[in-house]
């Protein structure tokens, strides 16, 4: 009995340690955002201090405001999400529920596009966009983001469309509804949940993207993940401001992650599960 209790205590402390290891870096950077610059610099690190919103005030309303960067991130993410969904919903519907010529092949194609190393496609994209003058434009970056968001969205949506019973369309056809009408009026409302989950993940991936943004950003398109670097330089780091910017960059995705928590495993594994031919 005593050995049992000891084991339980050990297991609890090990799992507690993991929990702490995951929470702490995030918690710590959030905490530093509420400190004054002196409190951030205190060594040993300070857990107890008088909180202040000065860092947030500075990065939002100060001379180096990051509000334009947040706006930029939102424009990129929302734009990518809209274009992706408009293209992905019809394609996923066709792949999941219609007899498509070369269906197997097209499914594989969608999967293969997901494996491309981003470094590989940013080089040609940089050259092409430079030639047509689309560097540092929203249309340029959104177009490139389709390379990863579109295959992902198609796969995720296919899994939701496949879950619906086939009688649904048959009934609608017998009633004389056109195919497009059936998709829009009958099928789409049934997969609302799946569409919402897909929207969340596409937005999240676009918000977090970095490599394409580094190469293609400029004075117009400058997402918050890039503007972070303004606060760290060789000469000095503006610690509390950096913490505030990180907090603002993290906030939207943490909120979305918690909203979509039940679907996160599905969202993270969708391509691979499909690729193996397993349901």
């Amino acid at each position: 009995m005593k050995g049992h209790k000891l084991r339980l205590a050990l297991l609890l402390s090990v799992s507690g340690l993991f929990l702490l290891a995951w929470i702490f870096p995030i918690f710590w950077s959030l905490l530093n955002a509420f400190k004054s610059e002196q409190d951030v610099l205190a060594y040993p690190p300070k857990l107890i201090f008088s909180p202040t919103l000065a860092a947030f005030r500075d990065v939002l309303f100060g001379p180096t405001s990051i509000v334009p960067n947040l706006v930029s991130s939102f424009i990129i993410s929302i734009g990518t999400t809209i274009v992706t969904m408009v293209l992905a919903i019809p394609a996923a519907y066709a792949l999941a529920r219609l007899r498509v010529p070369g269906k197997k092949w097209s499914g594989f194609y969608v999967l293969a596009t997901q494996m491309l190393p981003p470094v590989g496609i940013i080089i040609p994209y940089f050259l092409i966009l430079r030639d047509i003058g689309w560097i540092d434009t929203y249309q340029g970056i959104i177009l490139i983001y389709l390379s990863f968001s579109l295959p992902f969205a198609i796969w995720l949506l296919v899994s939701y469309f496949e879950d619906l019973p086939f009688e649904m369309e048959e009934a609608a056809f017998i009633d004389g509804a056109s195919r497009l009408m059936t998709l829009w009026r009958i099928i789409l409302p049934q997969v609302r949940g799946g569409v919402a989950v897909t929207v969340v993940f596409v937005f999240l991936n676009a918000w977090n993207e970095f490599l394409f943004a580094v190469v293609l950003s400029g004075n117009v398109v400058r997402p918050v993940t890039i503007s972070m670097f303004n606060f760290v330089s060789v000469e000095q780091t503006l610690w509390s401001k950096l913490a505030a910017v990180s907090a603002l960059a993290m906030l939207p995705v943490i909120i979305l992650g918690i909203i979509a928590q039940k679907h996160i495993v599905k969202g993270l594994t969708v391509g691979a599960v499909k690729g193996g031919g397993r349901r």
Partner: protein
Amino acid sequence: MTKATTLDVPVGGRADPARMMEGRERRFAAALLAPAFIALMATTTFPLLHLGWTSLHRMDLAMPFMDGFVGLDNYRELLGDPRFWSALGVSLVYTFSTVILQVVLGLALALLVNGMKRGQALFRIVAILPVVLSPAVVGMVWRTFMLTPEFGVVDYLSMTAGLGSHNWLGDPSLALFSVVVIHTWQWTPFAFMVLLASLAALPEDIYEAARIDRASPWLCFVRITLPLLRPAIVMVIIMRTMVALTAFAAIFTVTGGGPGTATEILNLYAYRKSFTELSIGYGSALAVALLIFTLVITGVLFALRRAK
């Protein structure tokens, strides 16, 4: 292209109605698929061909007057480039160490949490946090608030534990270790969540039978849990390997590939060559090498998955 316009073509009255329906369905499906496929071709296939073509050129943004077709010269240069082989080695070390750590730690924690009667929900929520964050932001937080010597929390803990202060990212012998830890920190929750979900879906009765046969917990794990979990573990390995091979943001923000080339994975070398040193042609050849490398490893993993 022609697909969208064929929708309203009248079908001959003498055709068999069933076949007519089928033909209509095909055209409808093609019309639905066409826009997405054109977009995919334009954003993935076309740039890939363009990349292959560029890799056969000398293209230097700093010296455009030297540009021109050079055939396989870039690839020949690449084979004799020690920095390429070093980057390949760093990529291999980075990929395999992070994937193994993620799977081992993720599985251990999943087993631990799966045995808990209460508190599972807490782990599930906390595990989401690192996974949804941008690797660039995660890298920045680690680089500054965790690892800065005589300021960061990790360095503080190391000093408190008597291990002394270290230049975690500036010391060539520590830098690769540090970026491996950061990647593992961010993505172990992914392995954990997937494996926990698979564990929860395992059938109860088989364990019941093992208990009646008085099988030891270790035997249960090796003979029952591990074989049943195998597909999930293999899937996690494949997915994490692919992501680790294309990782960029975390290393770029944390070390930029440095010090020197200590953390320069192939991705980063291709990026630096193309956009810092402006040798786009040679950078393209590196990217093609990376693509081949990724395909080979993915192929091997899929073969392993099919085996047995």
